[in-house]
Protein backbone atom coordinates (compact mmCIF):
# COMPACT_ATOMS: atom_id res chain seq x y z
CA UNK A 1 0.00 0.00 0.00
CA UNK A 2 2.80 2.31 1.03
CA UNK A 3 4.62 1.47 -2.18
CA UNK A 4 1.52 2.26 -4.25
CA UNK A 5 1.08 5.69 -2.58
CA UNK A 6 4.73 6.52 -3.13
CA UNK A 7 4.54 5.53 -6.82
CA UNK A 8 1.37 7.59 -7.34
CA UNK A 9 2.94 10.62 -5.67
CA UNK A 10 6.00 10.27 -7.92
CA UNK A 11 3.82 10.05 -11.04
CA UNK A 12 1.81 13.12 -10.05
CA UNK A 13 5.00 15.10 -9.35
CA UNK A 14 6.47 14.07 -12.75
CA UNK A 15 3.28 15.04 -14.64
CA UNK A 16 3.21 18.41 -12.86
CA UNK A 17 6.82 19.02 -13.77
CA UNK A 18 6.14 18.26 -17.44
CA UNK A 19 3.10 20.47 -17.39
CA UNK A 20 5.03 23.32 -15.81
CA UNK A 21 7.76 23.01 -18.43
CA UNK A 22 5.19 22.76 -21.22
CA UNK A 23 3.36 25.74 -19.80
CA UNK A 24 6.55 27.80 -19.71
CA UNK A 25 7.40 26.81 -23.27
CA UNK A 26 3.89 27.65 -24.41
CA UNK A 27 4.10 31.09 -22.77
CA UNK A 28 7.49 31.70 -24.33
CA UNK A 29 6.23 30.77 -27.81
CA UNK A 30 3.24 33.04 -27.30
CA UNK A 31 5.52 35.88 -26.20
CA UNK A 32 7.74 35.39 -29.26
CA UNK A 33 4.74 35.38 -31.58
CA UNK A 34 3.48 38.63 -30.07
CA UNK A 35 6.93 40.17 -30.44
CA UNK A 36 7.05 38.99 -34.07
CA UNK A 37 3.62 40.53 -34.81
CA UNK A 38 4.62 43.85 -33.21
CA UNK A 39 7.87 43.85 -35.20
CA UNK A 40 6.06 43.07 -38.46
CA UNK A 41 3.57 45.85 -37.81
CA UNK A 42 6.40 48.31 -37.12
CA UNK A 43 8.36 47.12 -40.16
CA UNK A 44 11.39 46.21 -38.05
CA UNK A 45 13.10 42.81 -38.36
CA UNK A 46 12.23 40.64 -35.38
CA UNK A 47 15.83 39.87 -34.48
CA UNK A 48 16.48 43.54 -33.72
CA UNK A 49 13.52 43.80 -31.36
CA UNK A 50 14.39 41.07 -28.93
CA UNK A 51 17.81 39.66 -29.31
CA UNK A 52 17.74 37.97 -25.92
CA UNK A 53 14.81 35.84 -27.01
CA UNK A 54 16.52 35.06 -30.28
CA UNK A 55 19.65 33.90 -28.52
CA UNK A 56 17.72 31.70 -26.14
CA UNK A 57 15.66 30.09 -28.90
CA UNK A 58 17.91 28.36 -31.37
CA UNK A 59 16.11 27.06 -34.42
CA UNK A 60 13.49 29.79 -34.49
CA UNK A 61 14.80 31.11 -37.78
CA UNK A 62 16.04 34.28 -36.17
CA UNK A 63 19.66 34.82 -37.13
CA UNK A 64 21.43 36.49 -34.26
CA UNK A 65 24.08 33.95 -33.50
CA UNK A 66 27.09 36.03 -34.46
CA UNK A 67 26.81 39.00 -32.15
CA UNK A 68 26.59 37.61 -28.61
CA UNK A 69 23.38 39.34 -27.64
CA UNK A 70 24.24 42.66 -29.31
CA UNK A 71 22.36 44.02 -32.30
CA UNK A 72 22.89 42.04 -35.49
CA UNK A 73 24.67 43.88 -38.28
CA UNK A 74 22.38 44.61 -41.23
CA UNK A 75 24.49 47.16 -43.10
CA UNK A 76 27.87 47.57 -44.80
CA UNK A 77 29.09 46.60 -48.24
CA UNK A 78 32.19 44.65 -47.13
CA UNK A 79 35.75 45.54 -47.99
CA UNK A 80 36.65 47.23 -51.25
CA UNK A 81 38.43 45.04 -53.75
CA UNK A 82 41.63 47.05 -54.00
CA UNK A 83 43.91 46.68 -57.01
CA UNK A 84 47.23 44.87 -56.47
CA UNK A 85 50.14 47.04 -55.31
CA UNK A 86 51.81 49.17 -57.99
CA UNK A 87 55.17 47.48 -58.66
CA UNK A 88 57.01 50.51 -60.08
CA UNK A 89 55.76 52.82 -57.36
CA UNK A 90 56.83 50.41 -54.63
CA UNK A 91 60.27 49.86 -56.19
CA UNK A 92 60.74 53.65 -56.20
CA UNK A 93 59.50 53.89 -52.60
CA UNK A 94 61.93 51.15 -51.50
CA UNK A 95 64.83 52.97 -53.11
CA UNK A 96 63.89 56.29 -51.54
CA UNK A 97 63.34 54.74 -48.11
CA UNK A 98 66.75 53.04 -48.18
CA UNK A 99 68.35 56.38 -49.12
CA UNK A 100 66.95 57.92 -45.92
CA UNK A 101 67.83 54.86 -43.80
CA UNK A 102 64.13 54.02 -43.35
CA UNK A 103 64.70 50.29 -43.56
CA UNK A 104 61.26 49.30 -42.31
CA UNK A 105 59.68 51.40 -45.03
CA UNK A 106 62.01 49.88 -47.60
CA UNK A 107 61.18 46.33 -46.54
CA UNK A 108 57.46 47.05 -46.62
CA UNK A 109 57.71 48.60 -50.09
CA UNK A 110 59.67 45.61 -51.40
CA UNK A 111 57.12 43.19 -49.98
CA UNK A 112 54.36 45.18 -51.65
CA UNK A 113 56.26 45.17 -54.95
CA UNK A 114 56.66 41.42 -54.68
CA UNK A 115 52.96 40.93 -54.00
CA UNK A 116 52.10 43.11 -56.99
CA UNK A 117 54.45 41.14 -59.22
CA UNK A 118 53.13 37.77 -58.10
CA UNK A 119 49.53 38.78 -58.65
CA UNK A 120 50.34 40.18 -62.09
CA UNK A 121 52.23 37.03 -62.99
CA UNK A 122 49.39 34.82 -61.77
CA UNK A 123 46.84 36.72 -63.79
CA UNK A 124 49.01 36.49 -66.91
CA UNK A 125 49.36 32.79 -66.41
CA UNK A 126 45.63 32.21 -66.00
CA UNK A 127 44.99 34.25 -69.13
CA UNK A 128 47.48 32.15 -71.08
CA UNK A 129 45.64 28.91 -70.27
CA UNK A 130 43.28 27.56 -72.94
CA UNK A 131 39.65 28.72 -72.85
CA UNK A 132 38.35 25.17 -73.32
CA UNK A 133 39.71 21.72 -72.47
CA UNK A 134 37.96 18.43 -73.12
CA UNK A 135 34.75 20.32 -73.90
CA UNK A 136 34.86 22.12 -70.55
CA UNK A 137 34.83 25.91 -70.45
CA UNK A 138 37.04 28.04 -68.25
CA UNK A 139 35.00 29.24 -65.27
CA UNK A 140 36.44 32.72 -64.68
CA UNK A 141 34.50 33.08 -61.42
CA UNK A 142 36.82 30.46 -59.92
CA UNK A 143 40.06 32.20 -60.88
CA UNK A 144 42.25 32.81 -57.87
CA UNK A 145 45.70 34.33 -57.45
CA UNK A 146 47.02 34.44 -53.92
CA UNK A 147 50.35 35.79 -52.73
CA UNK A 148 51.78 35.82 -49.23
CA UNK A 149 54.57 38.36 -49.82
CA UNK A 150 57.20 36.04 -48.44
CA UNK A 151 59.46 35.61 -51.37
CA UNK A 152 57.95 33.17 -53.80
CA UNK A 153 57.13 30.76 -51.08
CA UNK A 154 53.40 30.54 -51.25
CA UNK A 155 51.97 31.77 -54.51
CA UNK A 156 48.79 29.98 -55.50
CA UNK A 157 47.27 30.30 -58.96
CA UNK A 158 44.01 28.50 -59.51
CA UNK A 159 41.41 28.18 -62.23
CA UNK A 160 38.62 25.76 -63.06
CA UNK A 161 36.95 24.32 -66.15
CA UNK A 162 33.39 23.11 -66.03
CA UNK A 163 30.58 21.81 -68.24
CA UNK A 164 28.10 23.79 -66.15
CA UNK A 165 26.78 20.58 -64.61
CA UNK A 166 28.85 18.21 -62.54
CA UNK A 167 32.03 17.66 -64.52
CA UNK A 168 34.90 19.86 -63.42
CA UNK A 169 38.65 20.18 -63.77
CA UNK A 170 40.34 22.38 -61.19
CA UNK A 171 43.93 23.37 -61.93
CA UNK A 172 46.17 24.73 -59.17
CA UNK A 173 49.69 25.97 -59.70
CA UNK A 174 51.52 26.52 -56.45
CA UNK A 175 54.95 27.80 -55.72
CA UNK A 176 56.15 26.30 -52.51
CA UNK A 177 59.31 24.26 -52.20
CA UNK A 178 57.83 22.33 -49.27
CA UNK A 179 54.83 21.02 -51.21
CA UNK A 180 56.93 20.40 -54.30
CA UNK A 181 59.27 18.32 -52.15
CA UNK A 182 56.37 16.17 -51.01
CA UNK A 183 55.76 15.02 -54.61
CA UNK A 184 59.42 14.14 -54.86
CA UNK A 185 59.02 12.06 -51.74
CA UNK A 186 56.47 9.95 -53.62
CA UNK A 187 58.79 9.53 -56.61
CA UNK A 188 61.60 8.36 -54.37
CA UNK A 189 59.56 5.99 -52.28
CA UNK A 190 58.56 2.90 -54.22
CA UNK A 191 56.25 1.73 -51.46
CA UNK A 192 54.05 4.73 -52.00
CA UNK A 193 53.54 4.29 -55.71
CA UNK A 194 53.44 0.54 -56.29
CA UNK A 195 50.27 -1.43 -56.44
CA UNK A 196 49.57 -3.72 -53.54
CA UNK A 197 48.75 -6.42 -56.07
CA UNK A 198 45.08 -6.59 -55.27
CA UNK A 199 43.96 -4.85 -58.48
CA UNK A 200 42.94 -1.89 -56.40
CA UNK A 201 45.68 0.58 -57.23
CA UNK A 202 45.05 4.07 -55.89
CA UNK A 203 48.13 5.83 -57.15
CA UNK A 204 50.74 5.49 -59.85
CA UNK A 205 53.50 7.35 -61.64
CA UNK A 206 52.77 8.87 -65.03
CA UNK A 207 54.34 11.46 -67.32
CA UNK A 208 52.74 14.70 -68.44
CA UNK A 209 54.55 16.00 -71.52
CA UNK A 210 57.72 14.29 -70.37
CA UNK A 211 57.48 15.52 -66.78
CA UNK A 212 57.22 13.13 -63.85
CA UNK A 213 53.77 13.13 -62.29
CA UNK A 214 51.45 11.08 -60.12
CA UNK A 215 47.85 10.15 -60.71
CA UNK A 216 45.55 9.00 -57.96
CA UNK A 217 41.88 8.14 -57.70
CA UNK A 218 39.43 8.51 -54.89
CA UNK A 219 35.80 7.44 -55.22
CA UNK A 220 34.59 10.63 -53.53
CA UNK A 221 36.87 13.25 -55.07
CA UNK A 222 37.71 11.70 -58.44
CA UNK A 223 41.06 11.74 -60.21
CA UNK A 224 43.97 13.93 -59.16
CA UNK A 225 47.20 14.47 -61.08
CA UNK A 226 50.19 16.03 -59.30
CA UNK A 227 53.20 17.22 -61.23
CA UNK A 228 56.36 18.86 -59.99
CA UNK A 229 57.22 21.95 -61.99
CA UNK A 230 60.91 22.77 -62.00
CA UNK A 231 62.64 23.30 -58.68
CA UNK A 232 59.95 24.68 -56.44
CA UNK A 233 56.54 24.68 -58.09
CA UNK A 234 53.81 22.15 -58.46
CA UNK A 235 50.67 21.72 -60.56
CA UNK A 236 47.65 19.74 -59.46
CA UNK A 237 44.66 18.88 -61.61
CA UNK A 238 41.55 17.77 -59.74
CA UNK A 239 39.25 16.02 -62.19
CA UNK A 240 35.74 15.39 -60.92
CA UNK A 241 33.36 13.11 -62.84
CA UNK A 242 35.85 12.10 -65.49
CA UNK A 243 34.91 8.60 -66.69
CA UNK A 244 38.39 7.20 -67.32
CA UNK A 245 42.04 7.65 -66.47
CA UNK A 246 42.78 7.95 -70.21
CA UNK A 247 40.48 10.94 -70.56
CA UNK A 248 42.17 12.59 -67.55
CA UNK A 249 45.62 12.07 -69.06
CA UNK A 250 44.57 13.33 -72.49
CA UNK A 251 43.09 16.43 -70.87
CA UNK A 252 46.09 17.33 -68.71
CA UNK A 253 48.39 16.79 -71.70
CA UNK A 254 46.63 19.59 -73.59
CA UNK A 255 48.18 22.22 -71.27
CA UNK A 256 51.32 24.05 -72.36
CA UNK A 257 53.62 22.91 -69.55
CA UNK A 258 56.73 24.53 -71.04
CA UNK A 259 54.89 27.86 -71.30
CA UNK A 260 53.82 27.62 -67.64
CA UNK A 261 57.40 26.77 -66.63
CA UNK A 262 58.72 29.75 -68.54
CA UNK A 263 56.21 32.13 -66.95
CA UNK A 264 57.00 30.80 -63.48
CA UNK A 265 60.73 31.20 -64.09
CA UNK A 266 61.32 27.45 -63.72
CA UNK A 267 63.62 25.27 -65.83
Amino acid sequence: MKKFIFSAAACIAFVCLIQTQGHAQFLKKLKDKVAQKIADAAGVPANTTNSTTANSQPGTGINNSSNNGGPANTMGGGLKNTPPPDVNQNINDAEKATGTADYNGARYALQQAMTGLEIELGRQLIQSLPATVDGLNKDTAKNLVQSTQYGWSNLIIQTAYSDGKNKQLKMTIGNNPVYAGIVNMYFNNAAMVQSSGDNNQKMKQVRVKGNQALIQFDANTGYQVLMQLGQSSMITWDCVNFPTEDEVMTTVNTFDIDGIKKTMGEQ
Partner: protein
Amino acid sequence: MKKILTLMLVISITAAVNAQDFKTDIASARTNYAAGKLSDAHFNIEQAMQELDLIVGKEVLKILPAKMDTLNVNTTDDHVMSNSGFLGANIHRSYGNMMAYRTGGKMAEISIVTNSPLISSLNAFLNTPLLGSMMNTDKSKSIKVQGYKGRLENSTNTTGQTDYTIEVPLSNTLITFKITNSTDTEILNLVNTVPLQQIAKLLQ
Protein backbone atom coordinates in the same frame (compact mmCIF):
# COMPACT_ATOMS: atom_id res chain seq x y z
CA MET B 1 90.66 52.42 -29.48
CA LYS B 2 92.49 51.51 -32.66
CA LYS B 3 90.61 48.20 -32.75
CA ILE B 4 87.26 49.95 -32.40
CA LEU B 5 88.10 52.36 -35.23
CA THR B 6 89.17 49.45 -37.46
CA LEU B 7 85.92 47.67 -36.65
CA MET B 8 83.84 50.73 -37.54
CA LEU B 9 85.75 51.11 -40.80
CA VAL B 10 85.23 47.46 -41.80
CA ILE B 11 81.51 47.66 -41.04
CA SER B 12 81.12 50.90 -42.99
CA ILE B 13 82.88 49.48 -46.06
CA THR B 14 80.80 46.25 -46.06
CA ALA B 15 77.59 48.26 -45.57
CA ALA B 16 78.53 50.42 -48.55
CA VAL B 17 79.13 47.30 -50.66
CA ASN B 18 75.72 45.89 -49.68
CA ALA B 19 74.06 49.23 -50.45
CA GLN B 20 75.64 49.11 -53.91
CA ASP B 21 74.30 45.57 -54.50
CA PHE B 22 70.88 46.68 -53.32
CA LYS B 23 70.86 49.50 -55.88
CA THR B 24 71.94 47.10 -58.64
CA ASP B 25 69.15 44.65 -57.75
CA ILE B 26 66.57 47.44 -57.66
CA ALA B 27 67.74 48.73 -61.06
CA SER B 28 67.58 45.21 -62.55
CA ALA B 29 64.09 44.68 -61.10
CA ARG B 30 62.93 47.88 -62.71
CA THR B 31 64.44 46.95 -66.10
CA ASN B 32 63.09 43.40 -66.07
CA TYR B 33 59.65 44.55 -65.01
CA ALA B 34 59.55 47.11 -67.81
CA ALA B 35 60.54 44.34 -70.26
CA GLY B 36 57.73 42.10 -68.98
CA LYS B 37 60.16 39.57 -67.46
CA LEU B 38 58.15 39.14 -64.30
CA SER B 39 59.88 36.10 -62.85
CA ASP B 40 63.29 37.76 -63.34
CA ALA B 41 62.02 40.97 -61.72
CA HIS B 42 60.72 38.85 -58.88
CA PHE B 43 64.13 37.27 -58.37
CA ASN B 44 65.76 40.73 -58.36
CA ILE B 45 63.37 41.97 -55.67
CA GLU B 46 64.02 38.88 -53.62
CA GLN B 47 67.75 39.58 -53.89
CA ALA B 48 67.15 43.22 -52.93
CA MET B 49 65.30 42.07 -49.81
CA GLN B 50 68.24 39.91 -48.83
CA GLU B 51 70.63 42.83 -49.41
CA LEU B 52 68.36 44.97 -47.26
CA ASP B 53 68.53 42.40 -44.46
CA LEU B 54 72.34 42.50 -44.72
CA ILE B 55 72.38 46.32 -44.61
CA VAL B 56 70.13 46.32 -41.55
CA GLY B 57 72.29 43.63 -39.94
CA LYS B 58 75.40 45.78 -40.41
CA GLU B 59 73.55 48.73 -38.90
CA VAL B 60 72.70 46.61 -35.87
CA LEU B 61 76.35 45.58 -35.49
CA LYS B 62 77.30 49.28 -35.49
CA ILE B 63 75.18 49.97 -32.41
CA LEU B 64 76.20 46.89 -30.44
CA PRO B 65 78.75 47.59 -27.69
CA ALA B 66 82.34 47.26 -28.83
CA LYS B 67 83.30 45.88 -25.42
CA MET B 68 81.62 43.83 -22.72
CA ASP B 69 83.27 44.88 -19.50
CA THR B 70 86.84 43.63 -20.02
CA LEU B 71 85.96 41.46 -23.01
CA ASN B 72 86.93 42.85 -26.41
CA VAL B 73 84.90 42.25 -29.54
CA ASN B 74 86.08 39.52 -31.95
CA THR B 75 85.83 41.43 -35.22
CA THR B 76 86.56 38.35 -37.30
CA ASP B 77 83.60 36.56 -35.74
CA ASP B 78 81.06 39.27 -36.65
CA HIS B 79 78.61 38.04 -39.22
CA VAL B 80 75.25 38.82 -40.76
CA MET B 81 73.32 36.24 -42.71
CA SER B 82 70.14 36.77 -44.68
CA ASN B 83 67.48 34.19 -45.49
CA SER B 84 64.75 36.29 -46.98
CA GLY B 85 61.53 34.39 -47.28
CA PHE B 86 61.75 32.15 -44.24
CA LEU B 87 64.10 33.26 -41.52
CA GLY B 88 65.16 36.84 -41.88
CA ALA B 89 68.49 38.29 -40.81
CA ASN B 90 70.76 36.40 -38.46
CA ILE B 91 73.27 38.68 -36.71
CA HIS B 92 76.07 37.42 -34.52
CA ARG B 93 78.85 39.02 -32.44
CA SER B 94 81.19 37.56 -29.85
CA TYR B 95 83.43 39.01 -27.14
CA GLY B 96 86.43 37.54 -25.37
CA ASN B 97 88.83 34.78 -26.24
CA MET B 98 87.51 31.42 -27.36
CA MET B 99 90.75 29.70 -26.26
CA ALA B 100 90.44 31.26 -22.82
CA TYR B 101 86.88 29.96 -22.60
CA ARG B 102 88.08 26.41 -23.18
CA THR B 103 90.38 26.72 -20.22
CA GLY B 104 87.71 28.21 -17.96
CA GLY B 105 87.98 31.83 -19.07
CA LYS B 106 85.21 34.17 -20.03
CA MET B 107 83.46 34.75 -23.32
CA ALA B 108 80.21 36.47 -24.34
CA GLU B 109 78.12 36.40 -27.48
CA ILE B 110 75.02 38.05 -28.87
CA SER B 111 72.88 36.52 -31.57
CA ILE B 112 69.87 38.19 -33.11
CA VAL B 113 67.50 36.14 -35.26
CA THR B 114 64.47 37.63 -36.95
CA ASN B 115 61.44 35.35 -37.50
CA SER B 116 62.95 32.91 -35.02
CA PRO B 117 60.93 29.69 -34.61
CA LEU B 118 61.69 29.80 -30.87
CA ILE B 119 59.73 33.02 -30.33
CA SER B 120 56.33 31.39 -29.76
CA SER B 121 57.53 28.96 -27.08
CA LEU B 122 59.47 31.72 -25.32
CA ASN B 123 56.45 34.03 -25.38
CA ALA B 124 54.33 31.21 -23.96
CA PHE B 125 56.82 30.86 -21.10
CA LEU B 126 56.85 34.61 -20.46
CA ASN B 127 53.14 35.30 -20.80
CA THR B 128 51.41 32.22 -19.41
CA PRO B 129 51.41 32.47 -15.61
CA LEU B 130 50.99 28.73 -15.04
CA LEU B 131 53.70 27.75 -17.50
CA GLY B 132 55.98 30.53 -16.27
CA SER B 133 55.63 29.51 -12.64
CA MET B 134 56.23 25.83 -13.46
CA MET B 135 59.41 26.64 -15.32
CA ASN B 136 60.75 29.19 -12.84
CA THR B 137 63.45 27.22 -11.09
CA ASP B 138 66.95 27.92 -9.82
CA LYS B 139 68.08 27.27 -13.40
CA SER B 140 65.56 29.47 -15.20
CA LYS B 141 63.55 32.56 -14.35
CA SER B 142 61.65 35.45 -15.92
CA ILE B 143 63.34 38.85 -15.87
CA LYS B 144 62.89 42.33 -17.31
CA VAL B 145 65.61 43.98 -19.36
CA GLN B 146 65.12 47.64 -20.27
CA GLY B 147 61.37 47.10 -19.92
CA TYR B 148 61.30 43.98 -22.11
CA LYS B 149 60.36 40.60 -20.65
CA GLY B 150 63.01 37.93 -20.98
CA ARG B 151 64.26 34.64 -19.63
CA LEU B 152 67.47 34.09 -17.70
CA GLU B 153 68.93 30.61 -17.62
CA ASN B 154 72.09 29.15 -16.18
CA SER B 155 73.92 25.89 -16.61
CA THR B 156 77.15 24.33 -15.42
CA ASN B 157 79.74 23.88 -18.14
CA THR B 158 82.38 21.16 -18.56
CA THR B 159 84.94 23.12 -16.55
CA GLY B 160 82.51 23.33 -13.62
CA GLN B 161 81.74 27.02 -14.03
CA THR B 162 78.34 28.61 -14.52
CA ASP B 163 77.26 29.89 -17.92
CA TYR B 164 74.34 32.29 -18.27
CA THR B 165 71.92 32.95 -21.11
CA ILE B 166 69.33 35.69 -21.50
CA GLU B 167 66.68 35.45 -24.21
CA VAL B 168 64.56 38.48 -25.05
CA PRO B 169 61.82 38.36 -27.70
CA LEU B 170 61.29 41.64 -29.55
CA SER B 171 58.17 41.20 -31.66
CA ASN B 172 59.32 38.53 -34.16
CA THR B 173 63.02 38.86 -33.31
CA LEU B 174 64.86 36.81 -30.71
CA ILE B 175 67.89 38.32 -29.01
CA THR B 176 70.08 35.84 -27.18
CA PHE B 177 72.93 36.99 -24.96
CA LYS B 178 75.29 34.39 -23.50
CA ILE B 179 78.20 34.70 -21.15
CA THR B 180 80.39 32.00 -19.66
CA ASN B 181 81.82 31.76 -16.18
CA SER B 182 79.64 34.52 -14.80
CA THR B 183 76.99 35.51 -12.27
CA ASP B 184 73.40 36.63 -12.71
CA THR B 185 74.29 40.14 -11.50
CA GLU B 186 77.05 40.44 -14.07
CA ILE B 187 74.98 39.21 -17.02
CA LEU B 188 72.14 41.56 -16.09
CA ASN B 189 74.55 44.50 -15.94
CA LEU B 190 76.11 43.59 -19.28
CA VAL B 191 72.87 42.95 -21.13
CA ASN B 192 71.74 46.41 -20.12
CA THR B 193 74.52 47.86 -22.28
CA VAL B 194 72.87 46.36 -25.38
CA PRO B 195 70.54 49.00 -26.93
CA LEU B 196 67.45 46.78 -27.26
CA GLN B 197 65.07 49.56 -28.23
CA GLN B 198 67.25 50.74 -31.10
CA ILE B 199 67.70 47.16 -32.32
CA ALA B 200 63.95 46.59 -32.21
CA LYS B 201 63.41 49.77 -34.20
CA LEU B 202 65.84 48.69 -36.90
CA LEU B 203 64.49 45.17 -37.21
CA GLN B 204 60.73 45.66 -36.91
